[in-house]
């Protein structure tokens, strides 16, 4: 995904500061932070398809009957979805990504935050998948 961006897009997507952990980790329900990075409206169709592919790694972990409408919702939001990256931009073959990244849209927050605990940070990763408008099914339970 990162390698598919041109130089100008990478400048916007890559944040200049370190992210040590999740911003919207446990207890941060319903919060929406100001999005940063590269907005998908500034991506081409191929790049947007790649972004959706990354999103599907989280959004499609449930049964197909639930995953399909969820992916359709996220696809509809895609132009208002942001992609931000912090950390190494290369990866050693056979290793996981050691950088932080965040994908944020109107109904989505994905964070991927490798932890510095000694050794390879990619071996201990904190990750969060949220719908800030529907944390823990709030939209359904408040009906």
């Amino acid at each position: 995904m990162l390698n598919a961006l041109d130089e100008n897009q990478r400048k916007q997507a890559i944040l200049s500061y370190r992210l040590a952990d999740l911003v919207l980790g446990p207890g941060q329900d319903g919060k929406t932070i100001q999005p940063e990075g590269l907005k998908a409206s500034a991506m081409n169709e191929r790049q947007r398809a790649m972004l959706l592919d990354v999103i599907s790694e989280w959004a499609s972990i449930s049964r197909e009957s639930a995953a399909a409408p969820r992916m359709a919702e996220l696809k509809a939001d895609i132009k208002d979805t942001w992609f931000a990256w912090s950390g190494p931009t290369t990866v050693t073959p056979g290793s996981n990504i050691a950088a932080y990244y965040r994908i944020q849209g109107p109904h989505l927050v994905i964070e991927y935050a490798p932890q510095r605990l000694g050794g390879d940070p990619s071996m201990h990763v904190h990750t969060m998948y949220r719908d800030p408008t529907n944390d823990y099914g709030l939209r359904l339970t408040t009906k």
Partner: protein
Amino acid sequence: MKMRLAAAGAILLFVGTPASAHRLDEYLQATTISVEKDRVQAQIRMTPGVAVFPVVLAHIDTDADGVISEAEQRAYAECVLGDLSLTIDGDRLQLRLVSSKFATIEEMKEGRGEIQLEFDADVSSGGPSRRLIFENQHQSRIAAYLVNCLVPRDPDIRVTAQNRDYQQSVYQLDYVQADVRLTAPFFSWWSGARVWLGLAALLLFAWLALLWRWRARIANDAIAQE
């Protein structure tokens, strides 16, 4: 329905080594800032790592009795606030502690316990373009800082830029406010305490003018009597 509920919820995953191996040699301090026209609210969540916990505890449990008393909680919260700085358009704001919550020593010893502080500050009115600068220097040798702004609830406020240093100890937020009537720098300067200061100066000036007129009248009367 159950599946939709499960799919829509928030999921936290810890991948790789066992989840018991949490924060280690850093003191995570994550701040979220919320901007309103007349107020800034913020929450700071502080998680000491296992290896640095003794250093952090020594600052909190100052009598070293193994218990964090309410007085020690208050004192530590004020100490943290003293290491923070918040300015808007160059004016330093007075931070007020709103609430504090401390995890148990046992939780923090395992790198899982959080200290949560909420604070706020009044913001004097200003022009349509504003600049907030937040600095956190608390325990900088061991700290890992995070700072973010929440999307403003007030639709009249729009964030235009966020900048940070690499460590996120310094955070700059630029935002614009719609429907601000006093736009000229002169009017934005005349706000808050400065208004009262100006009024006091005006009253003093008026009193001195009256005094001068009264003395002049007495002097004129004396000359006329001669």
